[in-house]
């Protein structure tokens, strides 16, 4: 098994810019890193049937999601030359304009970080059991569905 540190992926509510800044600054001691690629998913105020999305309420099948994320993580380390990677996803309510997903990939040379980050984000969207309920101003909702 690897020695990569494990922490919970899920965060209650939005991912704050202070949290992201703190993650970035923790990497200043890892001086083999030459590039970081960071993806942030932000909740859009989409208009669906004339109603505006004001928030997304996220839920998950936690045990299965953690297992799937572990597989995604192991595959990324096997396929790319990475120094480290971190994935955080919100649960509960995230308002339009707030951050719900934070994928942070660091490598010696930039290409690994770019390619791995993009692939990880696609895998999270396609394979991890997380559901987003889009909430409108009038408190009605629809269930979001990711397109492949």
């Amino acid at each position, binding site marked *: 098994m690897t020695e990569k540190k494990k922490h919970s992926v899920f965060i209650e509510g939005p991912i704050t810019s202070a949290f992201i800044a703190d993650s970035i600054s923790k990497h200043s001691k890892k001086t083999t890193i030459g590039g970081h690629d960071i993806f942030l998913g932000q909740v859009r105020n989409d208009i669906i049937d004339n109603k505006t999305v004001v928030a997304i309420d996220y839920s998950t*099948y936690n045990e299965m999601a953690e297992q799937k994320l572990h597989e995604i993580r192991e595959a990324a380390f096997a396929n790319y030359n990475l120094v480290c990677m971190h994935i955080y*996803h919100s649960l509960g309510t995230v308002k339009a304009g707030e951050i719900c997903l934070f994928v942070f990939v660091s490598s010696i040379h930039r290409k690994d970080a770019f390619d791995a980050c993009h692939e990880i984000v696609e895998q999270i*969207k396609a394979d991890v*059991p*997380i*559901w987003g309920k889009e909430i409108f101003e009038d408190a009605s909702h629809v*269930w979001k569905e*990711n397109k492949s």
Partner: protein
Amino acid sequence: MEINLLAFGQLAEITGKAELRILDVKNTNELNQKLIEQYPKLVAFNYLLAVNKKIVQGNTSLNDKDTVALLPPFSGG
């Protein structure tokens, strides 16, 4: 025998509960049959089944105490 059924997202709205006990189903075909009888709305619904956290395709036999999850289309990120 008894299986533990978990329903997520929109499927939990249809079943009315996040967790149910289901008795006497030998495989996923029988389970789907039973669910559709109980919740006719499921017929029109596109979902996957996970048995003990692994997604299964086609008919899969079930054992006592298995956990089966009803997974609507994912929408994380």
